[in-house]
């Protein structure tokens, strides 16, 4: 069943207060961007005037969701922008760049490399050579950046090798997401450890696809819809068995929890959303019920935490940093807004400068903090932090898993 036309409805909720423009990190860094209000809700009303016209600065939105966070009327401003962008690319498919294609379809590349012997090593070598020879720029990818390397074993492969303890009665289904699966599988391994320690068996389901977030920002909305439909069907299947779905990537969880419904307005998506949790959101619920494994950390090694925008957009505070503090980890939030990466946004050559400008406040705070590691739930935020500061980074679940090992 179709919900009401949510996006339309939410454009009507805009009172043009301009708060979103005031907090938009892109508007601040790049005056060419006309701001979330104008590009989304305001222009939604104006299409009648000239179907062939379009807002040029629409491509500058990073979908970081700070507009949604600040909106006093609950307008999904960034989603409206993404719907606009999708409309534009539907009418102008030839405007898609090679970088759009690649960055939105990393999951395809990852699957393909897995099927080729030594595919991943060769691809990684290829990337090193490509970066050294300046070939990334030619493809529209920021040449200054080092692309995340493919893990020699994806999480889906590592998972099969993990021996989970016998006799665990409670189960959760893990939604690894592309970055953890193919680039940073150790986060997934840490997740399994933490869940096992709390009496949960971690399940995987091969039918899960990329959440679709990179497709949405690339303007490939129809593909994103097919991913959404298939993921939602899986989630609801597990919901029927009372098995919650948990993600460690905050962009994936935001997609599953909110963006599907905002974009596609399907009842079953709203239903599925209720069964999806961010890992630390879930662990906090356990803690509140007195069911979380007790542990106390003695080391006073200093950490600094960066809250991803897509975590803040979920409106649940910062469960990771709260929980880690609770167990004695010396950690403080950097409280420095957006890192500027916003998924694949900062990888685009034309966004590089904007991306680094947005991140500069965070970089400065990290550099001045004296912390030995930066903790962050989001994989691409961690890439940006490494690039902007040379700091070491980790996912909070890895910090917790380590605490459990002591």
């Amino acid at each position, binding site marked *: 069943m179709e919900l009401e036309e949510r996006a339309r*409805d939410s454009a009507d*909720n805009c009172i*043009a207060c301009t708060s979103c423009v005031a907090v938009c990190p892109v508007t601040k860094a790049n005056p060419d961007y006309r701001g979330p209000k*104008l590009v989304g809700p*305001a222009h939604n009303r104006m299409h009648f*005037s*000239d179907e062939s*016209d379009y807002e040029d600065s629409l491509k500058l939105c990073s979908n970081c969701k700070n507009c949604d966070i600040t909106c006093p*009327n609950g307008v999904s401003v960034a989603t409206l922008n993404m719907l606009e962008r999708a409309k534009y690319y539907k009418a102008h498919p030839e405007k898609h760049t090679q970088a759009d294609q690649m960055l939105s379809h990393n999951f395809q590349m990852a699957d393909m490399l897995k099927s080729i012997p030594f595919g991943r090593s060769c691809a990684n070598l290829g990337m090193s050579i490509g970066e050294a020879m300046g070939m990334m720029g030619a493809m529209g990818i920021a040449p200054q950046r080092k692309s995340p390397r493919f893990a020699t074993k994806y999480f889906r492969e590592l998972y099969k090798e993990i021996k989970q303890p016998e006799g665990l009665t409670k189960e959760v289904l893990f939604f690894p997401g592309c970055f953890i699966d193919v680039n940073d599988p150790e986060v997934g391994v840490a997740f399994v450890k933490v869940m096992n320690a709390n009496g949960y068996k971690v399940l995987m389901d091969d039918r899960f696809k990329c959440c679709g977030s990179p497709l949405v920002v690339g303007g490939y909305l129809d593909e994103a819809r097919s991913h959404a439909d298939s993921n939602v069907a899986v989630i609801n299947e597990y919901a029927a068995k009372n098995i919650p779905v948990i993600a460690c990537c905050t962009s994936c969880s935001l997609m599953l929890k909110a963006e599907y419904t905002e974009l596609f307005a399907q009842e079953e998506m709203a239903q599925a959303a209720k069964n999806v949790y961010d890992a630390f959101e879930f662990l906090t619920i356990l803690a509140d019920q007195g069911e979380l494994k007790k542990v106390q950390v003695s080391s006073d090694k200093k950490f600094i935490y960066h809250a991803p925008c897509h975590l803040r957009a979920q409106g649940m505070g910062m469960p990771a940093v709260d929980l880690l503090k609770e167990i004695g980890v010396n950690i403080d939030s950097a409280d420095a807004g957006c890192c500027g990466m916003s998924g694949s946004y900062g990888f685009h050559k034309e966004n590089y400068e904007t991306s680094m400008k947005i991140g500069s406040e965070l970089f400065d705070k990290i550099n001045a903090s004296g912390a030995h590691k930066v903790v962050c739930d989001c994989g691409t935020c961690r890439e940006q932090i490494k690039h902007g500061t040379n700091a070491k980074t980790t996912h909070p679940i890895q910090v917790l898993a380590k605490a459990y090992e002591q």
Partner: protein
Amino acid sequence: MVKDKATVVVVGGGATGVGILRDLSMRGIDALLIEKLDMVNGASSRYHGLLHSGARYAVRDQEAAKECIEENTILRRIGKSCVEAISGMFVQVEGDDPDFVDPWVKGCAESGIKTREMSKEEALRLEPNLSRKLVRAFEVPDGAIDGFRMSWQNVLSAARYGGRYKTYTELIKINVEGGAVKSITVRDNVTKEEYDIECEILVNAAGPWAGKVAQMAGLDCSVSPSKGTLIAFNQRISNRVVNRLRKPSNGDIFVPHGSITILGTSSITIPDPEDTSTSWDEVEELMKTGEGVFEHLRDYRILRVFAGSRPLYVPKGADGGRNASRGFVTLDHEKEDGLKGMMTICGGKFTTYRLMAEKFCDVLAPKLGNTAKCRTAEEDLVPAVSEADKKAARQYFPSYGVNLAATRLGTDKFPEVVKTLKENPETREVLCECENVTMAEVMRIAQEPTSHSVADVRRRTRLGMGTCQGNYCAIRSAAIANKLFKDKLEGCGDSLSDMKNFLQARWKGITPVMAGKTLREAEMTRGMYEVLFNVNGGRR
């Protein structure tokens, strides 16, 4: 004191008056139009903006239906810069009288109005917000027409043939000598100066005010002002005009009009045409009916509510209101009342304004010995800005702004605005972000001799007519007004009171619908202007 003269003076700057001014001017007759306020301030802008196909009248009044479809066709051709060439739908929903359909289809066919029945699936695909209780749907050639632009384009067309116009010029006395109108006394409502204008024929085209004008000559003309209340929604709910397929009644028509949708109307006979007040009850009645067509209507945001008075002509002893004829009447007071040099035109519909003028001038012109034929259907109201000029201008305008500005400004002012935008990048600033109006356009319109206030600029640019209803553009345009209206404002106050008047006019339409999303917006306005700027509190 006689200060001016014209062969014909037309009283009233609404659709009827501007149509006559254009018609007379094109026949080579020296004509001057006077309007007590700004052009198009009465019923001609306080209506749906519907370009009737005539289908609404196909059962009850086929003569009106035929006139509508003919004029609809003509206006689509000559009025490309003010007509939105969309189509329309008549929809029947569950509970509507099924027996109304056959006579309606027959009536349309007999009136020359093409109808096409479409499947429920097609109707819902074309207009997905339509009620799922839809039973039958027909396509008709309804369109939308912008009352402000249409009227100004008629005036500008007339001006090319020597026609003249004076706004803020109010008729206060008709001077009769020896059984004939010799002159009129008017007051300049900006300078308050009073003076006489000599004329051979005085045309009373004052719409709902026609009775009052007739009284000044001691004549009786029974106009029954009938108030119609309309609701403007924040966006287009449909891309076609949507009519309820049933016996015409209140709240039957939705017209997508530029960035908004207008729902109306009611029909209440009122004593005073100045009464454009609206109430929650009227809104509620319209919403209740409207929900039949768009079932989620209450989820859409209401921008404002407004009302206008139809100038219904009521022959003695007849009914007013919804049953009064939408036809028009030409009264030659020489024949009717023995007063030479005065004629009244009364009643009629916006859609047929050109035909009304033609028929009226066919009576008037021979009185002056003029036998020229009406040419108003042959020539475009205004030449259209070329695609090449629009394309070149695109780089300076906000997106979705070029077409709108080009049709508003026309071939003379559009290039000037583009030049300003090009030479002075600061003027590319979008003053009205809801309706995409640039600073350059506001400055250009402010320089027009007929612009005396920001409200005058609003009517020609749509400044302040979108989502935020003036929140941001009021303060921005006040700054410009302070610069540009300095001399003019001496007559009517300073830029602060101009800004307050501008906002007050917005408030008038918002207060009857102060609930939900509209209330949130209103609270922000109040917070900004009353709390932050303290516009009402500061005393010197």
